[in-house]
């Protein structure tokens, strides 16, 4: 057979010479020293993130230990905890508590709204519907944050669609009763805490759906069948098998909703009351007031809260679900 002759070559060397040129030599070098290649690959991203990002972050944290001179308004570059002390003033504590409470409520509400969507997408949607569902979650996730906020400004305004719809349903009285309540109420929805809350939930909702869906998809069908086989009703299967296994997904999603709410300053500025959130306080202190130390100290709050939160989430196994 001619193939046979072509495919066996007894005179060929067992070890070939290196490819000529710089690339051949470099390739051999990297093969012999994989650590060198690894180092060269990691160098640019680590330098970038290390210098640009961590460097700035560190500089900011450093400034939180400086203070501002009350008379000249200049920053005194001496180590002090005075600025952190200012955080504990009632007005600033108020801001922190308000933000954390809002973040908590938003997280809970997002989880409640997200769960049915994620559950349906993970367990019932098939084929084309599955793709459609996925896109239906991805599109709002990635579409413009500002446009979404703007849309709610349109919806919540006095002459907007929500009031129109409530009037058609003869429910205007209900809304007015709600708005008359302290704390959650206000002149209109677009200048109330309720409005802020709705927009937060809306904007961060996709961040909650995706991890829940991911964790639900990971539950093998056989597990649910086993549960049913052992005599559990669908409801019992859900609460005893599905829900506990989906919890890491909820925890993962809550990392996003919680963190994003803590740091946001645009939503409460555009839709909300005049009471500040942490983000707004940071923005105000670094901007017009020029009080960088206090602004820096304020940013430490979300970092610490998120650190605690991540630590708890890790214990719940949330990181496996991201």
């Amino acid at each position, binding site marked *: *057979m*001619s*193939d*046979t002759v*072509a*495919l*066996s*070559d*007894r005179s*060929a*060397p*067992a*070890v*070939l*010479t*290196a490819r000529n040129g710089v690339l051949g030599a470099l*390739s*051999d070098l990297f*093969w*012999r020293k994989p650590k060198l290649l690894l180092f060269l690959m990691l160098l640019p991203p680590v330098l970038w993130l290390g210098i640009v990002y961590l460097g700035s972050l560190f500089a900011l944290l450093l400034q939180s230990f400086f203070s501002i001179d009350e008379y000249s308004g200049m920053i005194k570059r001496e180590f002090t905890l005075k600025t952190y002390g200012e955080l504990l003033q009632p007005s600033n504590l108020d801001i922190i508590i308000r933000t954390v409470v809002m973040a908590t409520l938003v997280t809970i509400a997002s989880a409640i709204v997200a769960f049915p969507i994620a559950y349906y997408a993970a367990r019932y949607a098939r084929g084309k519907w599955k793709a459609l569902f996925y896109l239906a979650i991805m599109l709002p996730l990635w579409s413009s944050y500002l446009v979404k906020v703007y849309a709610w400004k349109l919806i919540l305004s006095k002459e907007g669609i929500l009031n129109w719809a409530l009037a058609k349903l003869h429910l205007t009285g209900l809304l007015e009763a709600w708005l008359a309540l302290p704390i959650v109420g206000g002149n209109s929805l677009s200048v109330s805490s309720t409005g802020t809350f709705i927009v937060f939930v809306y904007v961060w909702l996709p961040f909650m759906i995706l991890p829940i869906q991911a964790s639900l998809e990971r539950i093998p069908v056989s597990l649910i069948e086993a549960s049913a086989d052992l005599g559990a009703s669908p409801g019992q299967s859900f609460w005893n098998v599905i829900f506990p296994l989906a919890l890491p997904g909820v925890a993962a999603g809550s990392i996003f909703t919680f963190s994003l709410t803590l740091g946001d300053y645009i939503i409460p500025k555009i839709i909300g009351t005049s009471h500040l959130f942490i983000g707004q306080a940071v923005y105000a202190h670094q901007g017009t007031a020029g009080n960088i130390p206090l602004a820096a100290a304020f940013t430490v709050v979300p970092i610490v809260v998120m650190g605690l939160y991540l630590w708890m989430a890790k214990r719940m196994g949330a990181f496996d679900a991201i």
Partner: protein
Amino acid sequence: MIAAVSFENVSRHFGSVKAVDQVDLVVQPGEFFAMLGPSGSGKTTCLRLIAGFEQPTTGAISIFGERAEGVPPYRRNVNTVFQDYALFPHMNVLDNVAYGLKVKGVPRIERIRTAEDALALVRLPGYGTRKPGQLSGGQRQRVALARALVNRPKVLLLDEPLGALDLKLRENMQEELKALQKTLGITFIFVTHDQGEALSMADRVAVFNDGRIMQVGTPQDIYARPASRFVADFVGSSNVVPPDFVKRHCQRDGWGSLRPEAIRVSTETNGTGIPARVVSVSYTGAATRLGLDAEGLRLHATVPVGAIVPEQGADVVLSFGANALHVMAADA
């Protein structure tokens, strides 16, 4: 004659794990050589040492007399058929097969012709334009084979090449591989955990355990004269019998191995031999396999089709020829 592959005192450690531990090995040119062992026994690491994906921690590896330590895999004239075939999903079959020639700078026309020849050799002519995803498991395996052979390797390495195929296909491929190796005359080294595969295909077999080679020999050697309890246990379904049993029945020292088909089972309970009781009876197609309790020892025997099969719980008498009991050296 220069050895196709030789290991001299080769070790490969991963941290504290000795994946390969002081292995000496010589594979002759043109040989069909099998490395057999349970998973984690070091056989695959040995294969990867030959291919160049791993480097020995200590020791020397030569391929056709040339030292191979420090030589990258792409400069070794050795090719591998991977366990998962590792066909490039973004290339069609022909480009897959021609890949080795392409990166060596063989002109397009020539490499296409050679690749087509190779596809014909593995009986897949005309499959060149398909994508790997459109092929069956057996076809992918052939493409992987053609892709390796097209480079005219000095040694072809096969990592569990038939593991992913179903039984029928596996048996066909065993014969084909064997025939291909004979026609091409290339040294084949293949790794398997299936003793049947190793025994039926290889000229010689090396049995691995815990990073060491327990025995090297022809399939007949390994099967009939296992060197240790491990080999006897792992290769085939031999009965491993303790020294006191050996002492009693053939007056020699050491552990023995007794092949199931060498045991004669008689229902005539007054005959001479070892009294035993039938514990289990299972029909395997070609024969019936009996589980026996003899002098407190658990033994297996096979009864050929047509012979009288005792019932479960029956009392029987066992006997075997004097040379059927193979006595092994003290186990290391």
